[in-house]
């Protein structure tokens, strides 16, 4: 993939650029590139899989399965829809949820092959945020949520429960579950942007040219 062939993109972090190059190499069947990708994200991938499955053996299978999916289908990554990191970790997440729901994977990968409606931008949508938040800041942003909002989001994202199951488990109507998830995500959005705005002014994270475009 040459720079000339790429459409004009929003600014991305150097890590994103490095990841994209690794993914190109992975797509060409280079085992060392796969190993490089594994080394960059193995601890995050395993943390996600372990959190969802709560089973070290199953989590190991999920991570292997996810990286093998990337190995076989690196070309399915769509550049404009998020970073390689987000894409990879979303695959881990999908596979882990599939595993705990005890069903066969229904899609090889998040369905980028399906028609991709322009509204469906998943992740990394704010260049001003991307790459500037660490776990401490994200946890601080999560603390902005009310307990019930946080519970609804965590049961959904980490528990793999359906909305009805969350309603049953928390003893509230389905509509309440939906509004808690929606409000919780909105609050989190605001908190993340706020934290990222503060991060922009830190000297170690000086804006690169064009990053605010």
């Amino acid at each position, binding site marked *: 993939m040459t720079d000339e062939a790429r459409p004009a993109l929003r600014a991305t972090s150097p890590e994103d650029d490095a990841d994209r190059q690794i993914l190109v190499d992975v797509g060409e069947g280079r085992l060392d590139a796969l190993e490089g990708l594994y080394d960059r994200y193995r601890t995050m991938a395993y943390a*996600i899989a372990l959190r969802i499955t709560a089973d070290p053996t199953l989590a190991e299978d999920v991570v292997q399965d996810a990286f093998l999916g990337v190995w076989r289908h690196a070309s399915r990554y769509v550049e404009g829809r998020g970073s390689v990191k987000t894409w990879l*970790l979303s695959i881990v997440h999908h596979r882990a949820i599939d595993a705990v729901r005890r069903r066969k994977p229904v899609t090889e990968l998040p369905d980028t092959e399906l028609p991709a409606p322009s509204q469906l931008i998943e992740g990394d949508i704010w260049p001003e945020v991307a790459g500037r938040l660490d776990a401490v800041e994200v946890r601080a942003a999560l603390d902005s949520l009310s307990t019930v909002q946080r519970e609804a989001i965590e049961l959904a994202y980490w528990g793999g429960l359906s909305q009805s199951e969350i309603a049953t488990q928390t003893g509230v109507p389905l509509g309440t579950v939906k509004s808690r998830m929606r409000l*919780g995500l909105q609050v989190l959005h605001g908190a993340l942007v706020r934290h990222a705005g503060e991060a922009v002014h830190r000297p170690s994270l000086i804006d690169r040219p064009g990053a605010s475009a």
Partner: protein
Amino acid sequence: MTMTCDDVRDQAAGFVLGVLSLDEAAAVRAHLASCDQPHAEFAELGGVVPYLADSLDPVEPPVGLRARLLAAAAADLADTATVRASVPATVRASVPAQASLPVPTSPIPFPSAAEREQRATARPSGRGTWMLRIAAVLAIAVLGGWNFQLQSRLSGVEGDLAAAQAYRAAVTAVLDAAAQPGAQSGFLAAAGPASRATGVVAATGGSVILAVENLAPTTGAQVYEAWVIVGDAAPVAIGGFEVGAGGTGVFRGSTAFAAPGAIVALTLEPAPGATAPTSPVVTLGTVMGAAG
């Protein structure tokens, strides 16, 4: 299922968090694909979701996972290379075995951790199947890997062909060992960005044999040292060997593999007799047993 704009807005949070049923998610997609409304709620809510994972502390996966992933990926690659018939005619003519082996039509399943666990605790009834499966995977990966190497050495230099043939002969010996009752076997995948060394290993009846290609030749007193790592224990040296210009390494030694899941690794050591690795691992793999 047909959804209105309001229905879709109502389901947006569930959609981006991945809690909708497949039918519901498909209906949301179908609506968005044909709707001229911006539905900005998906970007607003969905953009948050990747950050949820950032709230976790990283967790180091088991050390064997790397080798297992790379071995499975190597098997995939070999599969592709076998199917890909782009070997130049001059080279292909000297590759007698290529056409006579079955060409896999689907990715070869590699044993999952769950399967390994099951085997470790299960009765011997699945043993024959498992052994056949390992042998098939080995055969395909080896043949494919060999072809792949040939393809990447398009010059067809005599020495390269000799090296490929030496490797192939060694692999045949490993395959024979892997077919013995009670044998354990596995792939060795390249470790580290500088290494292209890959190989196979089999252990049976207190002896171990491994074949590796693409090793840098040894010089002076250098040897490649083979190590066995069981669980969290320190690596145990099982012997060393030298490698010539062809880059093929073959090692036969005596060692008992007690537990399935042991890791075999190679390092390049300055002299024979190392008791602990002094240099980075160049290739490694997990050895798994056939017996239940």
